[in-house]
């Protein structure tokens, strides 16, 4: 007998001793043999901790006969695909005489693989010596495959989301670039239009022509401020009428360099949707422009400008103490301004009220904002 045969004989005898210590009617022994759960017992007191007992379920799972299993170490089930870290954990647990539960890829006799949910537990005698290791196995290949499939599906989904996100980001970048480019062109074009009007106004010797060109320039510039304010604000869809009015009035009145025209502002932020920005800007421009033109001609006075929300409505109010316009002077300009004002007001559904209180000329433009519409304002 060689060394291996000796070891095997020892293992078999150890197994027989174990079986013989349990009478055949011992329900625990019967259960161990008959259960569908694959189980083995090893003897750590023999060299290399060999299998000394295995049940039928284990033979069925592994493809080895009981005879082939007895006397061999469990590592016979391992193969090239078995995780080295899992193997190391099993070794460490056995060396430390501790329980261990681990999922490991094992190999059958025919070389096919199965995922083994392995549980190993030491068995101690009355003297607290570890005399056996009990090991149960569970074929969890189906579960593991499902996990792998799920992980693969998740990976695919993540990849898809990543691709879509990248596509969307590229589309957004392209769109942002386009918006910036269009904004740049609109601004440049507005300034070019203004420059052309100014150049021609400079060249002409005809006072009426110069006046007409400046009249058009004045409205183009109001729209220029709108474009500037719209894109400078963080919210390009909103336009603050009060902020527009402030810049317009300060610019116009400072440039006059006339001490006899004073301005009082009562402005609080009124945000409107971008589509209403241009007509509202033109309304403010006409009201202020009309007052300033009269003030220039007639020796000054005071202009009060109010832009605010009032009782859910939106009010633009320009009151001045300047002389009312002489109907014979600049009648065309007067009519043109009135036409622009009334047309813009009609577009917005705004009401214009004019009146004279003593030396005060009043123009109130009220935008009737319904309950439903108020939220958009």
């Amino acid at each position, binding site marked *: 007998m060689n060394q291996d045969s000796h070891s095997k004989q020892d293992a078999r005898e150890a197994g027989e001793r174990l079986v013989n210590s349990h009478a055949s009617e011992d329900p625990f022994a019967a259960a161990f043999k008959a259960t569908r759960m694959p189980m083995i017992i090893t003897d750590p007191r023999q060299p290399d901790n060999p299998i000394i007992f295995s049940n039928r379920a284990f033979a069925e799972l592994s493809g080895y006969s009981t005879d082939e299993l007895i006397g061999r170490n469990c590592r016979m089930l391992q193969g090239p695909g078995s995780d080295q870290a899992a193997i190391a954990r099993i070794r460490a647990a056995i060396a430390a005489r501790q329980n261990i539960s681990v999922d490991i890829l094992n190999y059958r006799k025919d070389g096919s693989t199965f995922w083994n949910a392995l549980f190993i537990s030491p068995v101690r005698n009355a003297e607290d010596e570890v005399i056996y290791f009990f090991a149960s196995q569970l074929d969890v290949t189906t579960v593991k495959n499902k996990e792998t499939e799920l992980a693969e599906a998740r990976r695919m989904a993540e990849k898809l989301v990543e691709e879509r996100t990248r596509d969307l980001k590229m589309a957004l970048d392209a769109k942002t670039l386009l918006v910036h480019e269009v904004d740049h062109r609109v601004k440049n074009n507005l300034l070019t239009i203004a420059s052309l009007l100014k150049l021609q106004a400079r060249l002409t010797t005809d006072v009426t022509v110069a006046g007409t060109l400046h009249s058009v320039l004045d409205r183009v510039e109001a729209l220029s401020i709108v474009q500037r304010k719209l894109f400078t604000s963080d919210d390009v869809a909103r336009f603050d009428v009060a902020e527009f009015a402030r810049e317009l009035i300060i*610019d116009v009145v400072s*440039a006059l360099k006339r001490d006899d025209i004073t301005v009082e502002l009562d402005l609080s932020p009124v945000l409107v949707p971008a589509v209403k920005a241009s007509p509202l800007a033109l309304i403010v421009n006409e009201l202020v422009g009309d007052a300033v033109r009269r003030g220039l001609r007639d020796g000054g006075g005071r202009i009060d400008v109010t832009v605010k929300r009032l009782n859910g409505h939106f009010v633009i109010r320009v009151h001045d103490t300047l002389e009312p316009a002489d109907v014979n002077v600049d009648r065309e300009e007067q009519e043109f301004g009135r036409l622009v004002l009334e047309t813009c007001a009609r577009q917005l559904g705004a009401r214009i009220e004019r009146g004279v209180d003593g030396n005060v000329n009043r123009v109130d433009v009220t935008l009737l904002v319904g309950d439903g519409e108020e939220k958009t304002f």
Partner: protein
Amino acid sequence: MKILIVEDEALLALELESELQSAGHEVVGHAMASDEARHLAERCRPDFAFVDIHLVDGPTGIDVGRHLRDQGIPYVFVTGNLKRIPEDFAGAIGAIEKPYTMNGLKNAVTFLEALVTHDGAIANAPPSLVVAPAFAC
């Protein structure tokens, strides 16, 4: 003031020149590209400069601005995109945003002239001029 205009749009530059002349200033140079701007800055020694950010050779106005700062020439940016200006304004006093109005430009020029030639106060800058943080009070 002797003024340098750095602007790639000829019509805008021409109109700006007219506006500055009627305000009593002398335009000593007009550059459309960055190297031309640097060259003119050294040759003409202007008292002040208006600098567009986007020039014939790209968004090089910022570099022109830094060069002017190094030469001790005060300037402002004139641009349609304030977001392009670096946080330190590259040493500029501020920026006039395009499309500016005739009145807005006049007020900005009056203010800048007072600031540069008579050590005017930086307070009360007109709304048409965005003052750089370093100059803001």
